[in-house]
Each structure stands twice: as C-alpha cells, then as structure tokens.
C-alpha cells in the first residue's frame, strides 16, 4: 500500500486513495520441525532429520527390550483455542519388514511405548501398547492461543514387548511414526 506524500510542492491538497483490503489469517496454527530438548536422553543416539534413533533396542544378554527415553521439542503456535492431536502410525514399534505370518513362541515382535506431550499447560498421554498394529491417537483441548515449544517425551520400559514381559525380540528393524497437529477451533 503506497502512501502519496502530502504536501508535494507541485501538487495542491492531499491525494488519498481508498484500498479495499481482503484476506485471511493464513494457517492459524503452525508446528515446526523437531529438535532434541536439552537434557539427557537415555539409550538414544540422537535426532537425524526427523528420525530419532534408539542406540541399543535390545539387551545383548537377554535379547529383550532395553529401557530408553528421550525428549524432543517442536516450535508451535496457535492464534486461537485449538486441539492438539498426537497420532502414532503403528501403535508401537513394529518390524518394518514383516517376516512370515506366525512369530515363534516365546518371542516379542513389537515394542510398546509411552508418548507424553506438554503444551500450553496441558498434558496429553498416548500409550502405544503394541497389542495390534493400527493407528492410535489422542488429543487434548487448549482453551487459549499459545506459542512456544511443544515438548514430546518418549519412554520405553525395559523388557517391554507386545507378548510377555522380558521376552526376547525377533531380530529386525523396528519403527513407528508420530505426527502432531494443532487444529484451531473456530
């Protein structure tokens, strides 16, 4: 919007224009990319892009799950009251390559974990229990606008498997994808 300077010597009087302004507040909520929160992670190698890598998924003497925990921050802001939604793609860490239909007796083949979100004085907990491979999600209402860092904490218990506690895990690569969205309520 350009303003014509008033009082130019060559002109007489002010010149003004009326401009109609139309538009909307784009994407009232936004969330950014993850980064590691300050503080200790246990049994995680760190964040590479959007991938959080576990150091030793299994204990080498028992071949069952090792304890692990990490905290990750996402810059986030929302100009309206909104809902925070946390979605797990697999409901636990599942083998990325499915190997055969029937896992042998006595072995686990998925790893349950807890995901805890702290945002704008609200808490959201998702128990990815790994009982069935499916999408699992949870949400919480935030009754005001907010901006800052959304904190996500992950916790894996020692010996946690989808069959019995302390069962050895079948060999393989295990993973899950978490998605966080902020949805404005209008």
């Amino acid at each position, binding site marked *: 919007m350009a303003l014509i300077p008033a009082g130019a010597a060559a002109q007489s009087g002010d010149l003004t224009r009326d401009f109609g302004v139309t538009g909307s507040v784009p994407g009232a909520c*936004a969330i950014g990319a993850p980064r590691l929160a300050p503080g200790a992670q246990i049994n995680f190698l760190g964040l590479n892009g959007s991938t959080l890598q576990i150091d030793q998924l299994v204990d080498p003497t028992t071949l069952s799950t090792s304890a692990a925990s990490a905290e990750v921050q996402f810059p986030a802001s929302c100009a309206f009251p909104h809902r925070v939604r946390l979605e797990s793609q697999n409901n636990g*860490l599942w083998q990325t390559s499915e190997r055969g239909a029937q896992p042998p007796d006595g072995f686990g083949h998925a790893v349950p974990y807890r995901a805890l979100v702290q945002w704008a004085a609200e808490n959201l907990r998702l128990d990815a229990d790994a009982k069935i491979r499916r999408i699992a999600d949870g949400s919480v209402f935030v009754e005001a606008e907010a901006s800052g860092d959304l904190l996500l904490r992950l916790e894996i218990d020692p010996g946690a498997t989808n069959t019995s506690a302390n069962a050895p895990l079948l*060999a393989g690569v295990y993973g899950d994808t978490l998605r966080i969205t902020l949805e404005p309520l209008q």
Partner: protein
Amino acid sequence: MIARLTTAASAAAAAATLLPAVAAAQLVEPAPGRLEIVGLAPNACVVRTPPAASGDNMTFQPQGNAAGQITITETVDSAARPRGGSLNLVVPIVCNSPHRVVLTSRSGGMRRAGQPVAQPGPFAELLPYSVNAMWGPSTSELLTSERSRLVIDSAGARAGGLSLSFAIAPGGQPLVAGTYSDEIVLELQAAN
C-alpha cells in the same frame, strides 16, 4: 575322567547398517510436526549355563560362563573295560533369527593324556562316545568314532533347551591307565 563343555554364541555382524533410509553424510530436512522412531534388534544368540545334572555313571557340574565339566564317575571296571554311562544336559538357548547349532569334539573322543604307550597291546587310548542333540523338531547325532562335528540348522528364531544326550557304551576294548579327557565345544551362529 573329564570332558569339558564350552559354549560360544556369535552375533551376526549386522549392527553396522542401522538405518537403511538415512545416510550418515547427508543433511536431511526434518519434517514439521513429525517424528520417526527407529531401533535395531541385531541377529544374535545367547546361551546360558546348563544346570547341574547327573545320569548313569556321569555327572555335569556347571562352571559359569555357559560352560561346565562332565565327569565319568568310574571309567572302567576291574578288567579295565569301560563301564559305560549316560547323561542328559539341557542347554538354555535363545536365537532371535535363523541360526546354526554346531557341536564339536576337540579330541575326537575321550583321549588319554600324555605320550602314547610304546606297546599298547589290546589296550586302547581313546574312549569313543556319542552325543545325541535335539533342538526343537531337529535331531542330530555325533559318534566320535565316525566324525567330530554335528550341525543343526534352524530356519527361524527359537528359544528353549537344547537337549544333549551323552552315551558311552559299556564293554569294548580295555583302556590303558591314565587320565582321559575331551573338550566339547557348542557354538551358536546367528545368520548374517
């Protein structure tokens, strides 16, 4: 008369490739609001110390580190002939991937220690024995008089007890006096 049982379990050298999708040298842009969690359970076997056992004229004493000693209580009778005996051991094993079980007799039988005697005559210096191994649905037998190694291949993961049945036939050739021993090595090899 003793035989030592030692075990070894090897893990596949698969730990080097952790995340096929992420190369170490490349800078990956993190996606907003998204987090992938990844972990690797490498191919591996673990072996535990078998519990103490006693059979017919044979006993097993665990010695820690998944190893132990099999002892024949009375090796020969008054005519120096083998008394024979038997013993069953159960070795607790977990393998989380396809694997191979290998049992090897180091001496090819219970072998007398020291220099061979000059004129043994009808006396032997080697006492043969057999081991029958059972692991899940598979069995295999080792006769030290024929070969010194048995192999069981498993197409999948398995957790349980490997059953080892040792047997020495009574009678047969009398034995030269002395100390007889063998080392039986049990090895678990996880697939690469």
